[in-house]
């Protein structure tokens, strides 16, 4: 009899430990759930590194398409991509020799860039442009207007600006344009579901 009672007591004691254990685990889980930060946003972050016409077009098509899909889009122009956003009508003074050289050697704005393949001394690029017109494919000018209207955010890399001696006053007028560093871009990219390097 006492043996049976003892076994029962032991069983219920074990039961209590299991319940305690579960409660403790639940508490820990609750804490973890509370600490979970909101996940990635519906945002596309694109690093635009290239100054090739075809790649820039692709970047703008993806960015504007993303906004149409109800997402946000951020484009971070860095290195060779930076001069694409220069305005050929604007001039900037006060550059040193290297700055002048970069300014001269790199494309002055989006209409001075070439295809990455089949450029053929500019012939390929102008053929592609007239073909695009014929087929109603939006030109880079139209893409940029569309991006501005849709609220695509454009970041320009500050480091490239100072490295290549570019000045803010020689860049295009765009409603959502900011001069930032890598941390600003990464903060956006970290919470983006789609990240691209073009």
């Amino acid at each position, binding site marked *: 009899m006492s043996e049976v009672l003892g076994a029962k007591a032991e069983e219920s004691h074990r039961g209590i430990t299991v319940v305690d254990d579960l409660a403790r685990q639940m508490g820990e889980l609750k804490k973890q759930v509370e600490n979970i930060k909101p996940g990635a946003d519906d945002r596309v972050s694109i690093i635009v590194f290239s100054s090739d016409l075809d790649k820039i077009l692709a970047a703008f*098509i993806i960015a504007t*398409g993303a*906004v*149409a899909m109800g997402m946000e889009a951020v484009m971070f122009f860095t290195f060779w991509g930076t001069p694409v956003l220069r305005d050929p009508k604007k001039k900037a003074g006060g550059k040193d020799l290297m700055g002048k050289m970069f300014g001269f050697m790199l494309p002055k704005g989006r209409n001075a860039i070439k295809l990455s393949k089949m450029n053929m001394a500019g012939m390929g690029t102008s053929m592609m442009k007239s073909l695009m017109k014929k*087929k109603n494919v*939006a030109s880079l000018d139209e893409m940029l207007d*569309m991006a501005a209207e*849709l609220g695509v955010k454009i970041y320009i890399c500050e480091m490239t600006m100072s490295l290549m001696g570019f000045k803010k006053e020689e860049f295009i007028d765009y409603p959502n344009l900011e001069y930032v560093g890598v941390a600003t871009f990464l903060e956006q990219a970290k919470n983006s579901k789609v990240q691209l390097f073009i």
Partner: protein
Amino acid sequence: MSEEIKVDKIMDLKGLPCPQPVIKVSKGIKEIAIGQVLEAITTDPGALSDFPAWSRTSGNEILKTDQEGGLIRFIIKRVK
């Protein structure tokens, strides 16, 4: 016979290639009220997969898709 759907706005997107049809429709749908219906006519073959993808992502509903020659007609209801 399917019942006639009342269309509140028609968008003619003939001749426009990717990504313009989807971009224009995403803007156009905001010009009608929730519950109203938009008809989009396009010649872009990519639209056959792009419009359903856009509808799933944006939450708007494609009520009907017609294809006739090179013309593709979408009847879209604004849900959001």
